[in-house]
């Protein structure tokens, strides 16, 4: 129960941080910063709310597969876009 509450508070904190960061003049760095914080939040949700560690190895592998295959798609599309 406590773990969930701490996680929730941490998420709200991260939300605040991401909005604050967006108001800084970071230029091109703003995008990766925003995504990085989102990734952090997502990890908290997966790790605590979705109880990643209590899942079977197959379920964990499925979670990874989704992310990794998305990276395949993104990476190879960007190979084309980046070198046109």
């Amino acid at each position, binding site marked *: 129960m406590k773990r969930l509450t701490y996680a929730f508070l941490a998420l709200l904190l991260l939300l605040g941080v991401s909005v604050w960061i967006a108001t800084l003049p970071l230029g091109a760095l703003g995008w990766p910063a925003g995504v990085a914080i989102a990734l952090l939040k997502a990890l908290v949700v997966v790790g605590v709310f979705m109880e990643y560690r209590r899942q079977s190895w197959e379920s964990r592998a499925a979670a990874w597969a989704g992310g990794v295959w998305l990276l395949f798609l993104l990476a190879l599309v960007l190979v*084309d876009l980046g070198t046109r």
Partner: protein
Amino acid sequence: MSEAAETNYLTAGSSLRSWLLTRDHKRIAILYAISITAFFLVGGVAAVLMRLELATPGGDLVASATYNRLFTLHGVIMVWFFLIPSIPSVLGNFLVPLMIGARDLAFPRLNLASWYVFMAGGVLALGAIFAGGVDTGWTFYTPYSSTYSNGYVVAMVAGVFIAGFSSIFTGINFMVTIHAMRVKGMGWFQMPLFLWSMYSTSLIMVLATPVLAITLALLAIERVGGIGIFDPAIGGDPLLFQHLFWFYSHPAVYIMILPGMGVVSELIACFSRNRIFGYKFVALSSVAIAALGFLVWGHHMFVSSQSVVASLVFSLLSFLVAVPSAVKVLNWTATLYRGRIVFSAPMLYAIGFIGLFTLGGLTGLILAAVAVDVHVHDTYFVVAHFHYIMVGGMLMAYLGGLHFWWPKITGKQYSRRWGRVSAVLVFLGFNLTFMPQFVLGYLGMPRRYHIYAEQFQLLNLCSSAGAVILGLGYLLPLCYLLHSLFCGKPAGSNPWSATGLEWQTASPPPEHNFNGRPSSPGEPYRYDRMGKEGGSAEA
């Protein structure tokens, strides 16, 4: 066996309701078999009309607009409503639980839902065809499909979108079933190779299909609502559509061929009465093909003005994905070595498959060579290549598998002689149809051409003639297999003396597959030892 003969899954209920609301994976397989046969006939009629039209260089039989609708119909129906569901949804549905000794798939209701979703998609696609058709080709390239085409693109795309979910459901079902429901004592490397291929196929279905679904949804939104994502008129990139489309549609080729490879592994082992050569290599090459197959889609875009660097990367990866396929061919051939080969109908199909798939795969190398592809891209060379894989490969394997497991599915024997005749006929007809197209392609005849230059006529005529033989070859099994349903001799539980758990139960199997739990199978394909005990494939 004696008690099982009393009721089986076919006799367990005969009302229409008992079929339409069934959750039995075997009955759902039958429902799929009937539906995809119907779709195959629709797609086949379109193919015959196209080949007739192409017998002469002019546009004598149908107008351009009709011709474009015909090849779109042929492509969409054959790809999404026949080839992709064929082996997984029919043979896979029937065999996956049987082969691992389970009572059913993990999610029987989801399985039934997948059939309904499939039919809903199919009805929508057929509706689009009867309403007036679609002329974009099965690839739906933007901006033609989103802005310029005047066909029923949205309905067709919606049909494919919906049918996609049936693929996803089937994939999830197979993966979970294979993970969680294998009989005690069956480890990953004791599974029949068909299951390895089903697992790899499911991997692709699950991870690639959603990409197609959302891409087609974006296309429909652009066409209906004008919210353009790909529209060059507002700065959109039509190549993005191609990237996303082929991210699904190249792996989809492996959805079509991997199950065929699984079937052929079973057939070759059984009818050469030999253990499969290099079991682990064959098993893992399926997974390798499934994973690597995701990284090569750009070879469909070598001349699309994708960057030179991207083309080179995709070309390299395409060459590499051919390695695991080559491994499979070697292993099948080596399995024949010192076997005791029986030339039954399924085996003839399997041998035909090896030849046709090898040629299809090798010409794939030529297409992967980017400098040559610049010339042969979008010509009949490509058409011939992918028909060698999809039809020469997948359809041969599907028919082979159907002939192999027909006694298990129906409990009946078909005419062995006619089985062999049709296998040979299909092989000959196929080669006559598609071999000339390789030459046509290199000579420069573009695909999707309704009217063509005169120097191409001779080869086109050969191809059309072959199509007639091929068509006959496909109609034959329809006749004698149906005939066997009514007049066939009872098959017995294991007519081929095959290993594998599915042969340990009655034919047709009882409602929950096994009476009691099947015994642990141990090592698969122990045919070499069975031989000494007097087992034989010639029952």
